[in-house]
């Protein structure tokens, strides 16, 4: 009969079917994938997004800071001098003798009239052996002789130059040969001349290669890129690695749940396969193969997605970081690692359920009845233990360096790494707690909460993933709040976009050291006579008139504020609260406390103790001297220990605007004098770039300089981005998890449909599942974030200690804790509800 077709086969068949068996099994797995690809799509999407996020994040982290070889070009070593004298020449000669080629770059700092910025007159050979990366040609050509110069675009616009124009610089009339830039720092404004043209250099840099020689034997001005980078433990590589680990953790958490549900759905088919004689290895092969395929496809998709996002974002990153960034300047090691890890994570995540499924008895598998979830009464203890450990570790890392906590990167990493599993272990406990709390709720809510607790394995990993995402966001939020929240060391944008600050540009004395884009430079002495205050005031007024804006004179008192708060010292200029100033900001005299010495818009300043009003020092604007903080503020020393401070919200908040002023009452009481060397120009509309350069031009004809809004982010911006990040991650994980959790209860849906549940009931189920999971995840994330920050700060006085957390970003926390779950619930409501018929049919199938 049938068997006549096959000749009796000798038992040469391999023990478990060999290659044909594997092929048959893989063929079946592929057919299944084709039928079920939609269910796998969510896992795929999440893996792709995680890989893409890691790629883009590390690319940004690596490229945002200055390039590692900034200032060195391709040289391994550099020595800097402040002048080119005989000593310098002899050192250079000995370097040439020892190491061969030495490239010299000489520069002289010049000021740009009408602006507080400076530029360099720089001599560098464009074809020098090491300086290549620091110089590139935008248009025209490099200077070829002593009578030529190439300028950066900033210098060109400041001096109204274009290619071919004549310009007197460095004492010589030169022709502008071309426009250049420093790709490593687009803020670097310089005029390039041929070597030897800088007559009075304020600095000389010698670049050379000393491959196997210790720095100390060269001299104490020598540096290498590595020595510069080493002092900073948070170099881009560390950050990328941390981001990668976090990203993969999220992937693994999310994948395990997904693959387990997938395996459960195939339980019957696997039972059939086993009953036909497939071995356990075949079954595991199928599920692991599936996982690997999903991992590979997800990794590739993630790479493509990451590349696209990177290409789109790169131009704005170039703008904000002020150096040229290569198109393919990704951190390729991280890219490869991310893709490999995605595949490995997917494979591992799929293998666990694979092993579990082969342990199910065949007959039970055939009945399609998954094993009832194990009701383990997980105690909260292991999770709490891990959290405590994490707390201590973070404290250790924050407290290194005698409480100035600037190192201890391994402890920090370990602390964070322990924090996450601590949260993961706590998740199931909170789930069952929630179910118990929902006892009196209406039927759909009750059921949803109980299901969450019942399918603890599934919802637990989702919960963990959400809390990790929120945790990262909250840590960033709290760190920003603590930094920006220190009212003494005030950080933030300097002005708002409708304000300009006009400063009297008293030329600094010769020999003053200033910081420039290429390191410290010495400022030359200028030969002009200073203008009188009246002249300055008139010129400032005309600038304001030209802008159609209001001019507010800022009187600088001969007094200052001193003190320390949360580890930081007072920073910022103070002015006098003249009637004109108060009027300009709409502050009525009746609103001022007659006893107030100081008015400020800095939030919380009035609550700060340890602030002293130094009225006898003739306080000058500038960084406080280090001995000031140790001086006692007494009347004898000419200092008022507890000045009366009134917070006035109407005063502007910018660091270059009059955010803190002394009342006339205090001026009278302590006999303080004042002078006007600064003005605030305030318009009704934001100033355009054209208006700003017009103002700078007007200022250049006088000894004034104009300061416009810089792009330092405000505290709001940082916390907002962190909040958005946390919410997006949470919602993404929620989207997938809710689908998975509800799919486990397919038979329940069938029963509910048969018992007459309306679509509202189904919608409520999904909405409550999403909302509860979202809220719990947010709560755990916030708690974890606070634990992390408290741990880090408690022995970290440099960053203000725990009190630095006093500034709570309430709005953002509420958005995460309430807004996100509410949104998830609404979305769950809208997208729930399938036809009961479809469910009935599928369940029977």
């Amino acid at each position, binding site marked *: 009969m049938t068997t006549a077709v096959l000749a009796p086969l000798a038992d040469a068949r391999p023990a478990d079917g060999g290659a044909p068996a594997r092929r048959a099994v893989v063929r079946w797995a592929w057919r299944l994938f084709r039928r079920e690809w939609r269910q796998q799509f969510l896992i795929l999407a999440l893996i792709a997004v995680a890989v893409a996020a890691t790629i883009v994040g590390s690319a940004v982290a690596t490229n945002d800071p200055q390039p590692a070889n900034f200032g060195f070009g391709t040289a391994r070593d550099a020595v800097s001098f402040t002048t080119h004298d005989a000593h310098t020449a002899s050192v250079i000669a000995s370097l040439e003798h020892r190491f061969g080629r030495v490239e010299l770059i000489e520069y002289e700092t010049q000021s740009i009239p009408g602006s507080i910025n400076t530029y360099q007159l720089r001599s560098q050979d464009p074809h020098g052996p090491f300086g290549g990366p620091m110089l590139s040609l935008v248009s025209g050509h490099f200077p070829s002789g002593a009578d030529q110069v190439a300028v950066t675009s900033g210098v060109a616009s400041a001096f109204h130059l274009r290619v071919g124009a004549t310009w007197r610089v460095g004492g010589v009339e030169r022709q502008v040969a071309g426009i250049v830039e420093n790709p490593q720092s687009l803020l670097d404004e310089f005029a390039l001349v041929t070597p030897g043209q800088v007559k009075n250099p304020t600095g000389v840099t010698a670049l050379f290669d000393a491959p196997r020689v210790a720095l100390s034997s060269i001299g104490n001005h020598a540096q290498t890129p590595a020595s510069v980078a080493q002092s900073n433990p948070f170099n881009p590589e560390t950050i990328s690695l941390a981001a990668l680990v976090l990203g993969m953790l999220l992937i693994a958490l999310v994948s395990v749940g997904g693959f387990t549900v997938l395996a459960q759905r195939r339980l019957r088919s696997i039972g059939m396969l086993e009953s036909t004689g497939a071995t356990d290895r075949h079954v595991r092969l199928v599920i692991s193969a599936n996982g690997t395929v999903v991992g590979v496809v997800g990794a590739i998709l993630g790479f493509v997605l990451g590349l696209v996002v990177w290409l789109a974002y790169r131009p704005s990153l170039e703008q904000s970081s002020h150096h040229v960034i290569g198109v393919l300047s990704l951190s390729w090691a991280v890219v490869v690692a991310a893709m490999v890890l995605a595949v490995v994570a997917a494979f591992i995540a799929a293998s666990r359920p694979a092993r579990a499924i082969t342990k199910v008895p065949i007959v039970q598998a055939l009945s399609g009845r998954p094993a009832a979830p194990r009701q383990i009464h997980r105690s909260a203890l292991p999770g709490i233990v891990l959290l405590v450990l994490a707390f201590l570790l973070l404290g250790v890392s924050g407290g290194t360096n005698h409480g100035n906590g600037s190192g201890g990167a391994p402890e920090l990493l370990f602390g964070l790494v322990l924090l996450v599993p601590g949260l993961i272990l706590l998740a199931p406990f909170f789930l069952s707690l929630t179910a118990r709390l929902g006892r009196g709720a209406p*039927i759909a809510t009750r059921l949803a909460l109980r299901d969450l607790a019942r399918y603890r394995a599934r919802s637990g990993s989702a919960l963990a993933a959400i809390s990790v995402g929120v945790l990262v966001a909250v840590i960033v939020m709290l760190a920003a709040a603590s930094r920006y929240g220190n009212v003494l060391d005030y950080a933030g944008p300097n002005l708002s976009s409708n304000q300009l600050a006009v400063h009297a540009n008293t030329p600094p004395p010769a020999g003053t050291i200033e910081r420039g884009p290429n390191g410290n430079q010495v400022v030359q002495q200028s030969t002009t006579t200073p203008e009188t205050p009246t002249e300055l005031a008139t010129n400032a007024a005309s600038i304001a008139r030209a802008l159609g804006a209001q001019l507010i004179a800022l009187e600088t008192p001969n007094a200052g504020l001193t003190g320390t708060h949360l580890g930081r010292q007072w920073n910022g200029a103070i002015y006098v609260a003249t009637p004109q100033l108060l009027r300009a900001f709409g502050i009525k005299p009746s609103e001022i406390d007659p006893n107030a010495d100081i008015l400020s818009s800095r939030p919380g300043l009035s609550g700060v103790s340890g602030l002293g009003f130094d009225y006898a020092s003739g306080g000058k604007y500038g960084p406080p001297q280090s001995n000031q903080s140790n001086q006692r503020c007494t009347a004898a020393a000419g200092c008022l220990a507890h000045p009366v401070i009134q917070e006035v919200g109407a005063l502007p908040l910018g660091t270059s605007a009059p955010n803190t002023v002394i009342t006339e009452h205090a001026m009278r009481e302590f006999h303080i004098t004042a002078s006007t060397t600064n003005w605030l120009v305030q318009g009704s509309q934001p100033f355009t770039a054209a208006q700003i350069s017009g103002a700078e031009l007007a200022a250049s004809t006088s000894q004034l300089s104009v300061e416009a809004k810089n792009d330092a982010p405000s505290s709001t911006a940082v916390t907002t981005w962190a909040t958005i990040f946390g919410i997006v991650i949470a919602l993404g994980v929620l989207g997938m998890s809710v689908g998975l959790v509800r799919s486990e209860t397919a038979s329940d849906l069938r029963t509910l449909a048969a018992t007459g549940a309306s*679509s509202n009931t189904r919608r409520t189920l999904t909405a409550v599942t999403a909302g509860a999971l979202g809220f719990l995840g947010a709560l755990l994330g916030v708690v974890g974030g606070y634990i992390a920050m408290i741990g880090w700060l408690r022995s970290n006085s440099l960053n203000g200690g725990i009190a630095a957390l006093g500034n709570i970003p309430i709005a953002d926390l509420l958005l995460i804790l309430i807004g996100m779950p509410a949104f998830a619930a609404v979305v769950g409501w809208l997208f729930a509800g399938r036809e009961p018929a479809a469910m009935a049919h599928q369940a029977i199938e």
Partner: protein
Amino acid sequence: MSFLELRRVSKSYGAGAAEVHAIQDVELSVECGALVAVMGPSGSGKSTLLTIAGSLEEPTSGEVVIDGESLQTMTRNDKSRLRRRTIGYVFQDFNLLAGLTAVENVALPLELDGHSAKKAHAAGMGALEELGLADRATHYPDQLSGGERQRISIARAVVGERRLLLADEPSGALDSTNGEAVMRMILGACKQGVAAVVVTHDAQLASWADRVVFLRDGRVVDQTVPPPSPEALLEESSRSGPRQ
């Protein structure tokens, strides 16, 4: 007066060459208080017949009439309400929501219909007491035996004022004692005026019915009034082919 009527009901899945006819031109009429058994092997369309009668699925053609109202004219919400108040459905397995206790499961349709949890609970307890299952009221389904679970499912299917009971292999997973207990419960409901349709492949249980309908490959091949002895019914079921 026939409470449930299926008029030339057909159901097909798929299209073209891959079209599968689950049931074809089925006619069925069930009066109040009648117990009708539907027999047939796997794949004969019994379950589909029941889901269509229970408004869980729509027929490809034909009409379903319950208590004089045609299902075709009903909206989804109307059908949900029908399932809450008029129809009780019992599957072979997975009838009870694992997250609810026995009494909560019985009270489920009442709670879904808007009754307060307390009132629904009281009604549920009443039903359980009547069936002698009151001591299992606070147990979760995984703490109950298969027979108890099915009996509680039937309690839920008749709680309130249901008039139509549809059961798909209710004794399928049970031993004979429990299986008979289940049938006895269904019969008791019928005596109170409930119209019941029970799908089964077991001739013994089918013999409890007033009428037995045979399905094979989607078509009704016979309808008989079963004689009193199960063995004779065995003979009946083995006679094959549609009557000419």
